[in-house]
Structure formats: structure tokens, C-alpha cells
């Protein structure tokens, strides 16, 4: 055991800059994933068999394949097919957003289904149109059920972004690896990276707890 964290102190700013890169991947993927996920969840609860079947099949693909395979397919195989040289930020965000949407759609579908059927009947008996009913009555109640699961999705997404280090993006993990290779020490930079991920997840969890408490005010 000869750990010496002082060796990586000069490299710490370089590694810390990776937080911004990791967050960029995460937030962009979360945004697009959420939008696409909401649309897919609406497909899943609709009575249209084609939309329904599509959304279910779509989800099964992302559930049934490792994320790193999808990332490699989009980053390395798409250029072969189209001749377009795709940047890591593009392929990364596309892959993570498509993947997150699959899981998010399932979470939202479950949240909507868990709202008491009577709420829908009460709204219908008042003549409230479908769109308004979903927006003003069903979704606000569903969000309370969805939120904890969504936080988990966010955490998973944050950690999954480490995969972009395999396609050359300068995220947290890749920076840690670069420092490790340069100085021939692995434990210190990688542990440092792990602690940063942990801290980010803890902050995310804390924020979600505050939000959840606010949402539960009407209980």
C-alpha cells in the first residue's frame, strides 16, 4: 500500500472539468429522453394498436440489449452506413436519450395507471375533455407516484454517461483514465472520479427529496 494522492493534485482541475462534460451528456439526454418518453408513454396507454405495439416493441429492444452495444452501434456503425462522421456528443446523447425514453415511458405509464380510476370517471362525468383531464387531473397525481422512480432514472443516466469514455469523449471517467495512464497510478485518480460521481448522485437525491416534499403538500 503506497497511496499518494498528492501525485494527482496537479491533475485535479483537469479531472474536475469532466463534471461539466458529464453533466452536459446527462442533462441533454434527460431532456430529450423525457420528451420522447412522455410521447411513448402516451402511445402505451392509447387504444391505437399500432402505436401501442410500437412502443412496447421499442422498450423491449432497449431492455434486451446492453447499452454499450447500442452506443457502439450508433457511434461506429452509423458512420459506415451513412458516411457521416458522428461526434461523441451526438451519438452519446442520442443513445442515452433513446434508452432513457424506453424506461421513462414505462415509469410514466405505470404512474398514470396507478391513479384511481374514479378520478377519470369523475372528470368524464363533468364533461372534461381528455387532454385537460390528463393535464390538470391525472398527470399531477401521477407525478407523485412517478417522481421517486424518475430520480432513479436520472441517477442511472448520470452513471451510464461514463460509457462515453469508450467513444473518446472527455468525461469524468476518461479524464481519470488519462491521468492514470500518464502517471502510472490507477487507484488515486479513479477513486477521485468515483467520489465525484457519488457526490453528484447524492446532490441529485437531495434535490429530489425536497421536490417530493413540496409535491406532497396536498396530502
Amino acid at each position: 500500500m503506497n497511496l499518494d494522492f498528492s501525485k494527482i493534485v496537479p491533475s485535479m482541475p483537469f479531472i474536475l472539468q469532466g463534471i461539466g462534460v458529464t453533466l452536459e451528456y446527462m442533462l441533454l439526454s434527460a431532456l430529450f429522453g423525457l420528451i420522447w418518453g412522455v410521447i411513448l408513454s402516451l402511445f402505451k396507454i392509447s387504444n391505437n394498436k399500432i402505436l401501442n405495439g410500437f412502443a412496447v416493441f421499442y422498450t423491449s429492444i432497449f431492455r434486451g440489449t446492453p447499452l454499450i452495444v447500442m452506443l457502439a452501434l450508433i457511434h461506429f456503425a452509423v458512420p459506415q452506413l451513412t458516411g457521416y462522421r458522428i461526434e461523441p456528443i451526438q451519438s452519446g446523447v442520442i443513445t442515452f436519450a433513446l434508452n432513457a425514453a424506453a424506461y421513462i415511458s414505462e415509469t410514466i405509464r405505470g404512474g398514470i395507471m396507478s391513479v384511481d380510476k374514479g378520478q377519470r370517471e369523475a372528470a368524464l362525468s363533468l364533461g372534461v375533455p381528455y387532454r385537460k383531464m390528463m393535464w390538470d387531473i391525472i398527470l399531477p397525481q401521477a407525478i407523485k407516484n412517478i417522481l421517486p422512480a424518475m430520480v432513479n432514472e436520472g441517477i442511472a443516466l448520470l452513471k451510464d454517461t461514463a460509457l462515453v469514455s469508450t467513444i473518446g469523449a472527455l468525461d469524468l471517467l476518461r479524464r481519470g483514465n488519462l491521468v492514470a495512464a500518464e502517471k502510472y497510478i490507477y487507484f488515486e485518480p479513479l477513486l477521485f472520479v468515483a467520489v465525484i460521481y457519488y457526490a453528484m448522485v447524492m446532490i441529485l437525491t437531495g434535490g429530489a427529496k425536497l421536490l417530493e416534499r413540496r409535491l406532497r403538500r396536498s396530502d
Partner: protein
Amino acid sequence: MINVQNLSKSFGKLDVLHNISVEVKKGEVVAIIGPSGSGKSTLLRCLNLLEVPTQGHVFIKGEEITAPKADTMKIRQEIGMVFQHFHLFPNMTVLENVAYAPINVKKIPKDQARQKALDLLARVGLADKADVYPSRLSGGQKQRVAIARSLAMEPEIMLFDEPTSALDPEMVKEVLEVMKSLAHTGITMAIVTHEMGFAREVADRILFLDGGRLVEDATPEEFFTQPKSERAKTFLEKML
């Protein structure tokens, strides 16, 4: 006001209603009674199409609501419904619950709708609860808010689906009082209930259902003193 012709309803292989025909005049208060599973609630729910009849026709104010191109949303605005389990919107205050549909469905100006909602809440004795969330109310209070919420749409018909069955005994009276006062306003009411005393006192007519069939259609006086069918007799013996 309500005209039901040869109505049948089945869920898959389970036949719930058989060939029911009945007419309710404007301003009439009709109590629908019968044993559990006799199809009372299903009959009521067919009147605003929460259940779609398998066969037969339902006319509201002369208009066939079971016609394929009937405007379901429009019809439902004219028919209020009160549920056994209230189904207030938990994410809205009491006042917002009552004013929501007038504002969002009827497009009434907000101030006007809120004032109307306050008046209605006063009428059911809950003006002081306007700004609390439903979770803070007792069952009886919730049901009175639910009644106010339905009335806010100024329906000509009110449907009550076992409005007191989920309440503690001491809260039943406050809800029945509100319904009683409503019965005198000339609104048409159809009430599924197990409250025999209330049905006898308030209803103009009793519909007795058993096994999905309309067994008796009589005045309360006739029904409670000399029921025609054996089935109604044994039912009343158990209930009274």
C-alpha cells in the same frame, strides 16, 4: 327527461342488465334499490355512458345518447354524477374542485365561477372549507363537496351512486339532508341507495332491481307497504 328502452348490458359473458325499459319525468326523484350485484349501479352508469349499453337505447331530453354520433361530452355536462367514493380531485382545493369544470368546460369567467362555487359550498354548509384540500375533510364533507361540484355545472339531471355507502353512520344524515333539499328544487334525480327510510321519504318512485331485471316500478307507498313480487318482499324483510 330520461327514457330507457330495452337496455341490456353484459361484461363479456356476464349479463348484468336484461332488457330494462323505464321512463323518468322531469323533476322526478327515483330511487333504485335492490340486492348487491343486481345491476343498480350499472343501470345508473349507462345513463351518462360511463358504461356503454350492449343493447337498447337511452334518451335524455328526447335525444338519443346511445346513437353512434351522439356528443358524449356535451351530454355528460348536463348530467351530474355523485360517486360512492367521492372522487374529489386531491390536487385541488375544495373551491378549485367545485369551480374547475365551470371554468374549463363551460368557459365561465374565473371570478364568476369562484363566486358561484362559494355560493354552492355555502349551500352544502362548507363555505369555511373553501381553501382546504380534500384530504383534510371527513367523508361526509367530501361527499357534500362532490355534490356541490356536480351542481356547479347546473345539470338538469343528478345521478347518485350509493352516495352514503362509504360513510360512517353519523355522517350519513348530513349528506342525506343536502340531497333532500336538492329534491325540492325540481332537479331530476336518480339515486342508487340502501337507505330505505330515505328512499321512502324522498323518492317519488322506487325501481326495484334483482338479477339485472326491473322487478318493480312503484310509488314508495305501494312498494314498502304491499310489494307485488316475492323477491321484493323477502328483500324488504331483510332490510327493515
